[in-house]
């Protein structure tokens, strides 16, 4: 059973629809009790960094989620679900992220903000999460802040939008992507399927 964290901000229908389409059992996690019988967690979402932390704390989910991550249990962070794994964000000064990895989210400076649309990823470190059949794979991106991290070994792929930044990260059973696999057509569905197979 996949638990989708619902912190009351993001649009969860897309990820739910995608998992249903792939025949992957899932349900929403809205409070501490929601973690029961959950094997994998997806933290999806478009939303704001600060508001998400506040809402997760209020719902009593934050502590459980941190335990989950520290225990290296299967996790897929999408968009904000990637950003929250790090220490901080220019979007919400003074608010701590999960701090699982070192790094900070910075606002794009040079290009149009937000980045909206299909961009490609350049694989830095081969991983079974990627469908190796194609050289170039495009995913749908939608964000204003990008990751700046000194932890080079967790970066699986990078993307260029004015700057080159990490777009896929992984350590152990924790995966996170800056793009939206649930909105990236077949490439995205393939990635979701691979993640479930992997962990």
């Amino acid at each position: 059973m996949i638990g989708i964290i619902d912190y009351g901000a993001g649009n969860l229908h897309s990820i739910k629809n995608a998992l249903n389409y792939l025949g992957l059992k899932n349900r929403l996690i809205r409070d501490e009790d929601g973690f029961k019988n959950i094997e994998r967690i997806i933290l999806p979402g478009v939303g704001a960094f600060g508001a998400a932390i506040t809402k997760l704390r209020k719902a009593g989910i934050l502590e459980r989620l941190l335990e989950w991550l520290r225990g290296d249990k299967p996790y897929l962070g999408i968009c904000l679900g990637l950003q929250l794994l790090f220490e901080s964000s220019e979007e919400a000064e003074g608010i701590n992220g999960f701090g699982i990895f070192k790094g900070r989210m910075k606002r794009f400076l040079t290009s149009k903000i937000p980045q909206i649309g299909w961009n490609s990823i350049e694989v830095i470190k081969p991983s079974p999460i990627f469908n190796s059949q194609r050289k170039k794979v495009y995913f749908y991106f939608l964000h204003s802040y990008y990751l700046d991290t000194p932890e080079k070994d967790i970066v699986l792929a990078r993307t260029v939008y004015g700057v080159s930044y990490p777009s896929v990260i992984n350590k152990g059973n924790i995966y996170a992507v800056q793009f939206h696999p649930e909105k990236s057509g077949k490439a995205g569905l393939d990635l979701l399927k691979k993640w479930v197979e992997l962990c």
Partner: protein
Amino acid sequence: MLTIRIIPCLDVDKGKVVKGIRFRNLNVAGDPIKLAQYYNDQGADELIFLDVTASVEKRKAIIDVVNAVAKKVFIPLCVGGGIRDIKDIRALLNAGADKVAICTGAVENPELIREGARIFGSQCIVISIDAARVGDEWHCYTYGGRVDTKIDVIEWAKRCEELGAGEILLNSIDRDGTQMGYDIELTKVVSSAVKIPIIASGGAGSLKQIYNVIKYGNADAVLLASALHYKKFTIPQIKRFLRKKKVRVRW
């Protein structure tokens, strides 16, 4: 690098796609789900559904359409037409839309942009501008191009950006349905006035014109309706052409 988006637009009336769509050997006429799947398979980067249903009570049909399409097609879905308040936006997003396109509702109540962006995020709020040339400038039109608001398009686009709009869908009323080509000048002035992405709309009739509005109008995306529906050319043809011209497209 970010690619240029090719976006088919489907007009939906009471749950059925209207504007005669001629697909030989393809029994999809009128069925929004099959058409969405068809364009998805063709490589569409996003889909826009425009609800043209006149009567308010029948507008539930678009919700059902979005609901059904979102269960089968996994690319961004934008829905426009008749959106007046937060309740309308919420209903569409809850049904599975990723974005809403607002025209008249935003001109008459600009606060809707700010509120919508605050509650759902800027990325959800696409402001649709129906522009027509009046003398030396462009005016915003409302009510499906029937009312000249006398509001300057460039000023309005800037205002929308300030209020929190995530994208601008820029439709040239002068070119709409003419297949004479996009209004490059209009696209260029609006595109350079704001930092948010511009979707050029109205007038697509040839591959060259699509290239021109990207290259010279600085469009971030192009919307196509009749030219695709009537199979003047296909999405793979557009992408092949653009690729040859060194425009980045999802391939």
